[in-house]
């Protein structure tokens, strides 16, 4: 309860700041839209030169992309920790965090929420809607529930990976270029996994399981039965990777000694 009320207080403070810097907020929402458009443009242009990508057609790929946007939006609204190292370790902000009576990770999540990223979920639904109109697929009533579970699973996988990377900061105070590169890699989970060679398939499935944020769960809704085994594994991977991240975080906090002073 305490955590929930804290969350709402931070969220309302956040909205106030966003309204102060109104021009930037609008540009930020537009830049998110642009980012989503860029990937869609990439798909559309690629399909000007080919009809299938590893046996999947244009609208299926667009559907996968639309699906991906939803967990991604949730992740980027609540787990915006890509500059954790610079902001909290190098600048010593972590000392302040550790004096607070809530879990340190929760405190950081509160401070770094970016609610406007949730607009991405709407874009995702629209993109999926567009693909569905061109595809001949039917949905059952329980698909909505499965969708929600898969989305949460995907968001947790994302969060798990990025929190784990952020914890590197506890062991080494170096600046890291890994996070931005990871964003690039996360994109590959949106393409049919079968186009890659075995090593990359393995990496995208079990090590940096971004395929569980895009192509695997989406294949359930596209009635691609050959991928169902992986699709239903999405929530398990979410819990697993998020769990590992929390363990790493707690171990890291124990090790943390503070930077200087």
């Amino acid at each position, binding site marked *: 309860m305490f955590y929930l009320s804290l969350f709402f207080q931070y969220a309302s403070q956040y909205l106030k700041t966003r309204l102060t810097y109104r021009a930037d907020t609008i540009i930020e929402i537009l830049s998110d839209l642009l980012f989503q458009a*860029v990937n869609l443009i990439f798909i559309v242009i690629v399909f000007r030169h080919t009809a299938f990508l590893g046996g999947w057609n244009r609208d299926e790929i667009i559907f996968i992309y639309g699906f991906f946007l939803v967990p991604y939006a949730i992740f980027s609204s609540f787990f915006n920790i890509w500059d954790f190292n610079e902001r909290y370790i190098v600048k010593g902000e972590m000392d302040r965090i550790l004096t607070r009576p809530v879990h340190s990770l929760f405190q950081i999540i509160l401070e770094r929420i970016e609610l406007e990223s949730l607009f991405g979920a709407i874009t995702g639904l629209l993109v999926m809607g567009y693909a569905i109109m061109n595809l001949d697929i039917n949905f059952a009533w329980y698909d909505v529930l499965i969708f929600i579970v898969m989305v949460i699973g995907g968001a947790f996988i994302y969060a798990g990976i990025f929190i784990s990377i952020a914890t590197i900061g506890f062991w080494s105070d170096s600046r890291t270029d890994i996070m931005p590169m990871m964003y690039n890699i996360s994109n590959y989970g949106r393409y049919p996994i079968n186009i890659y060679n075995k090593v*990359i398939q393995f990496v995208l499935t079990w090590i940096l399981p971004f395929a569980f944020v895009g192509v695997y769960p989406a294949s359930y809704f596209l009635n691609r039965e050959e991928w169902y085994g992986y699709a239903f594994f999405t929530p398990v991977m979410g819990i697993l990777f998020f769990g590992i991240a929390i363990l790493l975080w707690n171990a890291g906090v124990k090790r943390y000694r503070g930077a200087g002073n």
Partner: protein
Amino acid sequence: MSMYIEMIRVRFLMMLAYRTNYYSGILIYSINIGAYYFLWSAIYGGKEQIQGLSVAQMTTYVAVAWMARAFYYNNIDREIAAEIKDGKVAIEMIRPYNYLGMKTMQALGEGVFRLLFFSVPGMIIVAMIFPVRFDASLTTWLFFFISLVFSFIVNTHINLLTGIMTFFLFNNSGLIRAKRVVIDLFSGLLLPISFYPDWAQTLMSYLPFQAISYVPSMIFTGGFVGQEIYKALLSQVFWVVILLIPIRLLWSLAKKHLIIQGG
């Protein structure tokens, strides 16, 4: 002058000090290029050529585009924004050097570092695994490096502009992000410009972004030959010069307009 060279050196050494992520960085870099290789192979399917580029040229294009990106990419826009926000810029302005010049030199130090410690080892790994062709002639390499320098300048100009915009927007993270996305798409990093529909190609020819990634990558892969190379280099020079105008303008406006937020 020696002061500016010192800035390049200091930034280079600073990057060297933070070194835990070299190896992982190079690995991730290679995975990234590798994933693109498979994506493009799937896109090509059985086709010999798309828009005049073979699949081998396309792989090389992608690899070179990312190698070049390591050199021209920098975060000085974000640094300038941060320094404006905490008011440090006021102190920087009274120092005996040109603030924007200093930022450019720092970016160069970072670029040289990334080129040597990221691109080169990354490329060696990539060349061992994927059919990337680095056997271009000496003149091609030369033209490539010249155009890479211009890429750096054009990209840095755009970063300076986005950074300076913080004076007017106060909080600038949205614009910085939008800029990054626009550059990735319109510079030809993700897709060669020749893959776009004609109307989009025309539109993009009026923008400075292709000077950043498309030109060096096309020169290297042999997508541009003869006259085309000179024309492409000239277009880069054009943007190097033209972009100075808004920078000078906004900078002198900004100096009059300086509002320190807090502090």
